[in-house]
């Protein structure tokens, strides 16, 4: 991994935004699909966009509008959102160890932009012991946030023109992005691939007995813990 290159160029807002282009582009079709689905589920366009602005978490927004359409209660929707997004607690802990030297205000701002994708990109590009600059993180997260919010707005406004089948066909973009983030890390350290493969197997098994949110959390917690008893040899040096 070109860690030293990253370090030289990682300082600027533009470098962060550039690194985040695949995320921003990957978000657009998903955001459009969310916006359209939300409006078709009976959520007005204004609230559809407000949810993207205040929640900024794709899977739980899809879940919320389908639950809303199905007549679910407010408490049910909020609790399901909490469970589905609990994994951000773990991601935030992992990121906190990298951004230890940042000021408190900067860490607060950066934490609000944590998603599966921004977190994975930051952790894969900056291995333990390296920290990105605040401007890089801001560029990355603002690009992702804007594409999510603007994509949702476009989907909400043009809901009538968007066919149902398009959404599911395009949601593969999200998984392609996850794969793009995972493959270089695995090529760099095969031990990381083992953790990911174990997480997949655990996730499959746990999905049979638990709701999706808990299955993902359980698989993540257990698979990552194998690095405690069998470390990959890349210790974070102080």
């Amino acid at each position, binding site marked *: 991994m070109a860690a030293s290159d990253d370090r030289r160029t990682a300082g600027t807002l533009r470098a962060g935004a550039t690194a985040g282009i695949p995320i921003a582009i990957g978000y657009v079709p998903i955001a459009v699909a969310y916006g359209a689905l939300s409006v078709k589920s009976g959520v007005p366009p204004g609230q559809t966009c407000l949810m993207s602005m205040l929640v900024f978490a794709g899977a739980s927004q899809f879940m919320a509008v389908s639950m809303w359409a199905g007549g679910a209660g407010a408490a049910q929707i909020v609790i399901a959102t909490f469970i589905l997004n609990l994994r951000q607690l*773990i991601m935030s802990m992992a990121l*906190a*160890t990298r951004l230890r030297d940042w000021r408190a205000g900067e860490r607060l701002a950066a934490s609000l932009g944590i998603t599966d994708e921004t977190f994975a990109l930051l952790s894969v590009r900056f291995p333990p012991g390296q920290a990105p600059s605040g401007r890089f993180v801001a560029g990355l997260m603002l690009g992702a946030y804007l594409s999510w919010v603007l994509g949702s707005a476009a989907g909400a406004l043009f809901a009538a023109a968007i066919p149902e089948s398009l959404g599911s066909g395009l949601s*593969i973009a999200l998984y*392609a992005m*996850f794969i793009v983030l995972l493959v270089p890390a695995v090529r760099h350290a095969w031990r990381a691939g083992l953790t990911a493969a174990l997480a997949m197997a655990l996730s499959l098994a746990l999905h049979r007995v638990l709701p999706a949110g808990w299955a993902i959390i359980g*698989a993540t917690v257990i698979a990552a813990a194998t690095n405690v008893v069998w470390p990959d040899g890349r210790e974070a040096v102080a």
Partner: protein
Amino acid sequence: MRLLAIILGMSVVTNLPRVLPMTLLGRVRLPAPLERWLAHVPYAVLGALIFPGILGVQPAHPAVGLSGGAAAAVLALVRAPVLVVIAAAIAAAMGMQLWLGG
């Protein structure tokens, strides 16, 4: 009004798990085993999200998600540009969906 309450509630329960560890843990040096655990969280969470979730891209036909994922994995392995990988995954998934008559 009820919708607004739901959105605000979702915002609180989504952002608290984001904010709390980053603001509270920032200056604390975690024990080495915990740091090793956290170091592998990204790989684990990506694995857990990809599979079996990718099968549900088109719930009636798991092959749609799998073909898109396979195209993405192969192209990512040969270091294709990210946008090419994403475009190929979409094309493969849509092609499979058409082929299956979806």
